């Protein structure tokens, strides 16, 4: 769940991270009042859950309260990525001496959180890592033990930062890491973390994402911030295809067959199991395929759910074939998913042997599942075929058809 910038800054300020003076305006008059209170030049930022605000015209500068009012009026009517802003953040415009990057996220390979620091802030950290790797430092730390400030100090000092800057950046970075752990975040990023002309530091922009599963644990915090339990906080409104995917998952309580995300490719995906969806989606792309969708199957969904999900994916314009690939399953049954997928294809008016380019779900009840696939002439693989190889075969077969 993504926070708006103003919410992220409120949360960080509560944890002792310095943020610019200012406030949130819901009307142009609010913006004028806040600019007056701030005094001097201000920056006005559209509050949408989307990147690219500057390019889209969602960030403006104003030297006077009257200019701030006019800028807010423009921003409040400007759609960015199909979203109208919920408000405008009005903050003091700062004179910047140096920009840094501080971030905390999860390192999937190390299976630990990782703190990232760069002395080249203000630009995309991936770009810095690629073009100036000597300006990016990382340190893993434990998600179970309390965060130790010395880890942050080591990280920042590794890029040659010393003196008062090291002390202040360590304090801010440690508070960011504490916030990350305390609130079940998946990303906590300050970019840029700016040193102002007077030597002080301030988080000029930040991005916080909370793990969806942490929302219940953090319900008091979210209620305090005025965030409704029903707010999905996705980066964009769901498409009709995605809404229908959510309905599929609600047809009964058994397992999961949903979490559908729409893409514009031509290969429909029925994928899942133990993180398998992400791996398979990436593998399809790595082998040159264009996924039409992302989805997740797991927890032993009913035949009906697997059937409805298959029909949904096949109904998407541009989808000619589907690949059915999962990690090795233990609680999800291969035969149940096979029944659902084959039934879905037939109910959609097609031949399973034609529409399913490859089926790879090894695991519980695979013998029964494979009998079903054989009867309907569907090409399948067992656990000797890796997920990557299954994706490769699916992409190759789609290309050849």
């Amino acid at each position, binding site marked *: 769940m993504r926070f708006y910038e103003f919410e992220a800054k409120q949360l960080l300020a509560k944890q002792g991270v310095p943020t610019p003076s200012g406030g949130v305006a819901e009307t142009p008059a609010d913006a004028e009042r806040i600019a007056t209170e701030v005094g001097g030049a201000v920056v006005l930022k559209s509050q949408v859950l989307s990147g690219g605000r500057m390019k889209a015209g969602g960030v403006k500068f104003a030297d006077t309260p009257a200019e701030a009012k006019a800028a807010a009026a423009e921003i409040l009517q400007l759609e960015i990525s199909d979203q109208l802003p919920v408000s405008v953040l009005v903050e003091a415009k700062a004179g910047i001496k140096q920009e840094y990057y501080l971030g905390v996220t999860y390192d999937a390979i190390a299976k630990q959180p990782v703190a990232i620091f760069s002395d080249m802030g203000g630009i995309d950290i991936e770009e810095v890592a690629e073009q100036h790797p000597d300006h990016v430092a990382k340190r893993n730390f434990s998600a179970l033990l309390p965060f130790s400030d010395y880890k942050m100090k080591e990280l920042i000092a590794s890029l040659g930062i010393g003196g008062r800057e090291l002390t202040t950046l360590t304090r801010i970075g440690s508070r960011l890491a504490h916030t990350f752990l305390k609130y079940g975040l998946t990303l906590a990023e300050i970019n840029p973390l700016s040193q102002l002309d007077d030597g002080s530091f301030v988080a000029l922009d930040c991005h916080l994402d909370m793990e969806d599963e942490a929302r219940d644990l953090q319900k008091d915090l979210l209620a305090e911030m005025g965030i409704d339990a029903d707010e999905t906080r996705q980066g964009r409104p769901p498409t009709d295809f995605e809404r229908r995917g959510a309905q599929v998952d609600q047809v009964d309580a058994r397992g999961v067959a949903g979490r559908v995300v729409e893409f514009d490719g031509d290969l429909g995906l029925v994928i899942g199991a133990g993180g398998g969806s992400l791996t398979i989606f990436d593998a399809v792309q790595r082998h040159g395929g264009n996924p039409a969708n992302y989805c997740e199957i797991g927890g032993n969904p*009913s*035949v*009906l759910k697997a059937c409805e999900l298959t029909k949904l994916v096949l109904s998407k314009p541009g989808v000619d074939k589907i690949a059915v690939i999962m990690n090795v399953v233990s609680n999800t049954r291969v035969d*149940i998913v096979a029944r659902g997928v*084959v*039934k879905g294809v*037939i109910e959609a008016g097609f031949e399973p042997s034609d529409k399913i380019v490859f089926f790879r779900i090894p695991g519980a009840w695979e013998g029964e599942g494979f*009998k*079903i696939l054989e009867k309907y002439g569907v090409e399948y693989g067992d656990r000797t075929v890796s997920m990557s190889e299954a994706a490769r075969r699916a992409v190759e077969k789609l290309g050849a058809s």
Partner: protein
Amino acid sequence: MPMFIRVEVDPVAAADNDLAAKLVEVCPVNIFEQDVSGACTVVEANEDECVLCDLCIEAAPAGQVRVIKLYE
């Protein structure tokens, strides 16, 4: 029409209200129902959901309930 699993209950056994109630109770995917007379009927729409647990077969006298895999 089921595509993968067909469940058959012997007509005499199906008329046994006690057995019908037992079949309704044991089936985890609601394949059995009792009609107004209390007799057992098979819910066609749920047959393909059969998880092959055999609880219905064990609940009934031998041979009175049959679970047939249509893909074999």
